[in-house]
């Protein structure tokens, strides 16, 4: 590799948190920045699409894309970036799994437009502008990056934590890169990193985080909080459970867990206990599980577009 590695960072349908997350590297960020040449990063440097188009193919060492794919313009841009890059990295939960904006897939494109713009409202070009300046068309559904372009690596998380970003840059800058497809997180669930104690494994009630102040030592799941820890990759250091908040699964499911909702339903169905043994208990256990508010949003908070494909016609 001649000269400094060339780096691009781009955002599609995201919140901007991923761009900020680099700052969390702290002083280490200065080391990283001194070792790379930033060729394209709209949030940081003044570069335009035209600058990108002028670059020769595969001239960018690595492009980090954050955000979900939501508009036709998103798709055009990531295709362009793919063409200009040797490596494309899905950075953050949106690019990885669709992310929180992916929950919009529970509604159709038309329903979303109606809700946002009101009935009868047409998206028009800005005053005095051309038709070309009108906002890009919304895709039928939010999609993860890998739906559109080949993704070499993933740095997961919402946003990615320094403990996951750091190893990625180490690998990139040392040239000692893992096999393609690698996700920069643990293969084991984050319970491995969680200091909470697991004494009496059972779920007797379902609590939302605002409904109780959890015991500081005991497993949150055993206290009734739906912690996605058991199905979610470690690597974050169990940051949320340590702070008394249940894991919401932003790093994504472990490789063998598969669909996080199915894995979690199997686990909750196993853990739930109510009433005495026997058929009467089943009904009581159902009632406990029925109190779970927003199961889809709980289990697929970051991953709906990957695991639930659109079935509705319009």
């Amino acid at each position, binding site marked *: 590799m001649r000269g400094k590695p060339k780096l691009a960072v781009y955002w599609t349908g995201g919140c901007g948190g991923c761009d900020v997350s680099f700052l969390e590297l702290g002083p280490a960020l200065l080391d990283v920045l001194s070792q790379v040449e930033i060729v394209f990063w709209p949030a940081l440097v003044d570069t335009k699409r035209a600058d990108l188009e002028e670059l020769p193919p595969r001239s960018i060492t690595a492009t980090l894309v954050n955000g979900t794919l939501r508009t036709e313009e998103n798709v055009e841009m990531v295709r362009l970036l793919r063409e200009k890059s040797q490596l494309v990295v899905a950075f953050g939960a949106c690019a990885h799994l669709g992310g929180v904006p992916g929950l919009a897939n529970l509604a159709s494109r038309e329903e979303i437009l109606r809700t946002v713009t009101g009935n009868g409202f047409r998206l028009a070009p800005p005053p005095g502008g051309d038709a070309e300046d009108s906002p890009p068309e919304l895709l039928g559904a939010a999609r993860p990056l890998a739906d559109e372009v080949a993704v070499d690596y993933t740095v997961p998380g919402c946003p990615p934590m320094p403990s996951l970003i750091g190893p990625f840059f180490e690998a990139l800058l040392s040239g000692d890169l893992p096999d393609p497809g690698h996700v920069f997180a643990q293969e*084991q669930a984050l*319970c*491995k990193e969680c200091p909470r104690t*697991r004494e009496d494994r059972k779920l007797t009630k379902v609590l939302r985080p605002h409904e109780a102040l959890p015991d500081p030592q005991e497993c949150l799941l055993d206290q009734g909080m739906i912690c996605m820890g*058991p199905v979610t990759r*470690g690597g974050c250091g169990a940051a949320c459970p340590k702070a008394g908040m249940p894991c919401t699964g932003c790093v994504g499911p*472990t490789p063998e*867990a598969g669909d996080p909702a199915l894995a979690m339903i199997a*686990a909750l169905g196993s*853990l739930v206990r109510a009433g005495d043994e026997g058929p009467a208990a089943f009904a009581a256990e159902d009632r406990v599980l029925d109190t779970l508010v927003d199961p889809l949003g709980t289990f697929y908070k970051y991953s709906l577009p990957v695991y639930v494909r659109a079935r509705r016609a319009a």
Partner: protein
Amino acid sequence: MPNPRPDARGPRIGVFVCHCGKNIAGTVEVERVVEALARHPGVVYAARHEYMCSDPGQDLIKRAIKDHRLTGVVVAACSPTMHETTFRNAAEEAGLNPYLLEIANIREGCSWVHEGPETTDKAIRIARAAVEKVKGNHPLAPTEVGHADKCLVIGGGVSGIQAALDVANAGYEVVLVERSPSIGGRMAQLSETFPTLDCSQCILTPKMVEAARHPKIRLLTYAEVESVSGYLGNYHVVIRKKPTYVDPDKCNLCGDCAKVCPVRVPDEFNRGLSPRAAIYVPFPQAVPSSYTLDEEHCLGLNPLRCGECAKVCTVGAINYDMREERIEEDVAAIVVATGYDLYGKERMTEYGAGTVPDVIDALEFERLLSAGGPTRGEVRRPSDGKVPKEVVFIQCSGSRDPELHKPYCSKICCMYTAKHALLYRHSVHDGTAYIFYIDIRAGGKEYEEFVVRAMEDERILYLRGKVAKVYRDGDKVIVWGVDTLTGKRIEVAADLVVLAQAMVPSVGTEELARKLHIACGGEGFLKEAHPKLRPLEALTAGIFLAGAAHGPKDIPEAVAQGSGAAAKAIAILSSPTLTHSPEVAEVDEDLCSGCAVCVPQCPYGAISPGEVAHVNELLCEGCGTCVAACPSGAMRMRNQTDDQVKRMIRVALGEPVEVGRG
């Protein structure tokens, strides 16, 4: 038939389809199954046989394994519970690891339950799914383990005594645990036994004495099993022995202590028909032969408060400082013989039981008939001690009554009621005995003859019908019933009514079953592994069932079952080592996060938590509950992985098979 397009590198599976006479071939076109499977990817050979389990059938498999260098075998036949072992042994003899053979159940799961052309289609799908499973199987070896050299028998009734004696006589040590102060169980309470009218105690006590004196039997009475852990061959048992406060080696049964004891409580052995002191011996022939001080009713085990018994005990047998003992034993096998109780008579409000003193249950009547009973064998009724001249016996009291009571037949009541009536007539020559019955079930050696004798020689009045109501009128007990043979209403002004109460499992059976990780059926009786072919085994290996804890049965059956359970235990004790199936769950330690969701799911307590979960292979029975619960996919069932199951489902649903995998 050989596959026309065999794959040289991939798996080489042989499929063997059984006709099972007409059991399978009657509804499944076996030839078509063979043709379809011969074309299935990975299958290099498919054949059929009239009876695959026959020697020629097994030889067909063995030859094909060698001739076609098979790497896996599917036998499409009956349920794996029938012949899996047969065929796996055959495969092993031919040099194929037995765990590379799978059964496709096309009989119980297909030919027996369907008809029409789809039956063959389903058989093909089942067999194909089994082929896909075999492709993912790995060769395994059974786990070998040593074992303890003792047997635990829980329950000192006749069935448990028999089991203990048989095991001990075979040369193995037995720990016999009995909850009450004496062994003997229900049989010790009976007067005479049907159909021979042997004195119950006379035939039982020799066995009790033998059990007590046997050098290989450690008798622990007044003791209960507190906890059980471990697995087949290596159970660790904790037993709690309550203090009797009397040294059995010093006690000479003089009875002076009971005479001075100021306490009187109902005597359990006599079903409350007589009182006993707080220090007592349940019956004269009790084993161990010693008084027991009942802590609950004693005035306080405090010499300052009472201490009368200790004052009069000339041999100094009474020791108020005796403490509960905690005894630990390692045993290879466990026989559960915890017996039965009678369904509480107070539940029979329609028969006035519990409110009318002269409505008694069958065991109370046994005590009235017993020479050692509260009336010294004279039939006298509880209310006023008069000899009853008219006695009504009601059969099926609480049995065969799914609406209000128990749905099942208690099996022995027809016989003992005939005996009761007959013995009553022997005792009260001018008395009249009526028996209300639904049917007479007298299946057993010389049982029918016994009932006929009661009917004909003793002129006992058998009335076919149910009793509608029993109530007290003065010193009489009025019984209203209908004789369904004549259609006439019957009213008897009886002196005594005897209810043949339903048999129920003894108190605590369910709790003990939980400790042992064995199952109870719907009515609480212990459940056997197979109702026909494994009637003595619990579903947990190494635990055997004997006597009425398993279901209503009479003495010869209970004794036979005790001997049978003993034979099963001896088979374990006499094996140099035990083997355990390797088809169990295992943890992928690279994936397990130690979240411990699996731990409480295991019905066998086989999983221990930690940095990563650990499965005790010897405790695991391969049920797969933990695999389903595991959130991160770290728990796997050997030779039954998610990948295998998915492939089986896909092929069963008719999706094309990916070639070149496996």
